[in-house]
């Protein structure tokens, strides 16, 4: 967790916010700080309050408590039209009655430019996005990827100091998504101010952002660099996102006694509350109790469900230690993995990773 911004730094550049919103018994309380050039991803399940946070930053919803400063200037009471904030909405919301060029020129025009000046600036932005040929096109004639770039150009044309992107890739099909993600990454890297994007897709977040802020139930549960979060998840949600089995327990030397049951032997020597994580591929399953096996991490489990996972089979196990295990189709067939089947699961200590909670 990053430390709270030190008070007495009013001229601090970038974003410094604590957003508190209360609505229908739901409370969002998220602290966000970012320096110019940072790309921060708000990652979380649906209903975690990510989009609400974005709307508060844009001024479309009021702040109940907290503060919002951008480049040192307080924005809490500034109406959305006067905030130096650009938004790329999830479904882009391009104005259907205006051409791509006039969509992009809309912002500069509202900022007081003449029509000719605004269009000239819009043309530059479309050119930069590789859309010069589509300047005259109405939004409905644009492909998903093109519309996304027009939306980005429209948001950037107002020269915002804070760029907000709400699920920027969610509206695209898988193939377009790959291409647009790469382009978006390039444009975000070029952007000199703060960018905050909201997503529920860990891949989007890890590719596009320098820093992840994971939000669950309106609270920040973990934040840090993507690689750090992928390696050391701190909640079940994140562990599932990055594909790890995660447990919490009390460490004593190489042994971690889990909160609700068995122990796990690890290579790290720790003490006190810890997390233990290991990938599903590290799990080996046996139909009968392995004899002479050196693995000390041996648990008796029962198959709860089986599904294909890429070219692998993923088995969800319950029992002593609930866990997910990946195995090949052949292995799954030999074991006779069907729901309800008893199995023994082992994990080598070297494949686990323990870290302080």
């Amino acid at each position, binding site marked *: 967790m990053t430390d709270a911004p030190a008070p007495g730094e009013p001229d601090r550049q970038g974003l410094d916010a604590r957003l508190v919103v209360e609505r229908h018994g739901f409370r969002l309380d998220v602290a966000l700080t970012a320096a110019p050039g940072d790309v921060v991803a708000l990652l979380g399940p649906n209903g975690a309050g990510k989009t609400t946070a974005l709307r508060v930053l*844009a001024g479309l919803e009021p702040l109940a408590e907290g503060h919002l400063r951008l480049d040192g200037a307080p924005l809490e009471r500034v109406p959305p*039209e006067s905030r130096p904030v650009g*938004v790329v909405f999830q479904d882009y919301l391009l104005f259907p009655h205006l051409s791509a060029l006039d969509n992009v020129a*809309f912002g500069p025009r509202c900022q007081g430019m003449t029509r000719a000046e605004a269009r000239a600036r819009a043309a530059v932005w479309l050119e930069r996005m590789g859309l010069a040929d589509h300047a005259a096109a109405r939004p409905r004639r644009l492909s998903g990827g093109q519309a996304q770039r027009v939306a980005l150009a429209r948001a950037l044309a107002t020269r915002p100091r804070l760029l907000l992107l709400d699920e920027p890739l969610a509206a695209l099909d898988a193939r377009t998504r790959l291409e647009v993600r790469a382009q978006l990454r390039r444009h975000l890297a070029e952007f000199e101010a703060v960018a905050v994007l909201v997503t529920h897709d860990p891949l989007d977040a890890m590719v596009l952002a320098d820093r992840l802020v994971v939000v669950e139930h309106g609270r920040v549960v973990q934040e840090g660099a993507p690689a750090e979060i992928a390696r050391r998840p701190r909640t079940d949600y994140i562990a599932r996102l990055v594909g790890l089995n995660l447990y919490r327990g009390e460490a004593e030397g190489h042994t971690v006694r889990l909160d609700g049951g068995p122990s796990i032997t690890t290579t790290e020597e720790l003490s006190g509350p810890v997390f233990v994580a290991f990938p599903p591929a590290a799990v080996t399953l046996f139909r009968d109790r392995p004899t002479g096996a050196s693995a000390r991490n041996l648990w008796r489990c029962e198959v709860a469900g089986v599904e294909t996972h890429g070219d692998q089979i993923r088995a969800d196990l319950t029992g002593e230690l609930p866990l997910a295990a990946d195995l090949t189709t052949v292995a799954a067939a030999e074991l006779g993995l069907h729901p309800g089947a008893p199995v023994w699961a082992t994990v080598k200590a070297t494949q686990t990773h323990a870290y302080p909670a």
Partner: protein
Amino acid sequence: MTPRDEPGTGTTTRRIGTAGRRGVPLPLLLPGVLALAFLLLPLLALLVRAPWRSLPHQLTSTEVWQALQLSLVSATAATAVSLVLGVPLAWLLARTDFRGRALVRALVTLPLVLPPVVGGVALLLALGRNGVVGKWLDSWFGITLPFTTTAVVLAEAFVAMPFLVISVEGTLRAADPRFEEAATTLGASRFTAFRRVTLPLIAPGVAAGAVLAWARALGEFGATITFAGNFPGRTQTMPLAVYLALQNDPEAAISLSLVLLAVSIAVLAGLRDRWLTGV
């Protein structure tokens, strides 16, 4: 154990000869056809009894021209008034939340169900020479509204504006308010967002509402004759002229009616081509 029957084998699906075309029940067909006849017969009678030979002469008389001109001008002016005042009212009803909004909407729709004559009387009581507001208009500005062309426009706007407001409000509710939000994040004030984004988006709905209001204003009779009177060239619109002509010159009444029928058909055709299909 009996051998298991395989579903689908042995049994042939019974096909009904007229697949898709199903019989229409008589209790629905008969009244339906009757209703159609009832609606079309009077119009047909108008065409059958029309004095086609003397029609050119009838239609070129000054009185007819005056009435037609006055009708078109006042209906258009009433529509303009409805647009200028009604669209903002529709926006307020659709996009803002205030106490008693449901009541306001009910009051707006009241003229839709109110007998127009009552509307005319109410207008007289409000804007007449001794009316609640008219008294002040008269003594302060020397403005007298009743029995003037302005009164015709006001009477027509009174009955026509609700059509526009309801139509535009419905379109606004169907329109995605997030476009306004998007405009706001681009630096547009709420009014600019309305003018440059919302209004173009709801233009078809506004136009349809305007045509409805115009048609209603064109046919307005009760409120007009009560509040504006029946002075040829000043307040005598087509419907009034038709009614008057029916007393002493039925042929003229039929001719005038034909003109209004033609205008109505033209409006309907215009509506269908531009707004009811496609866009």
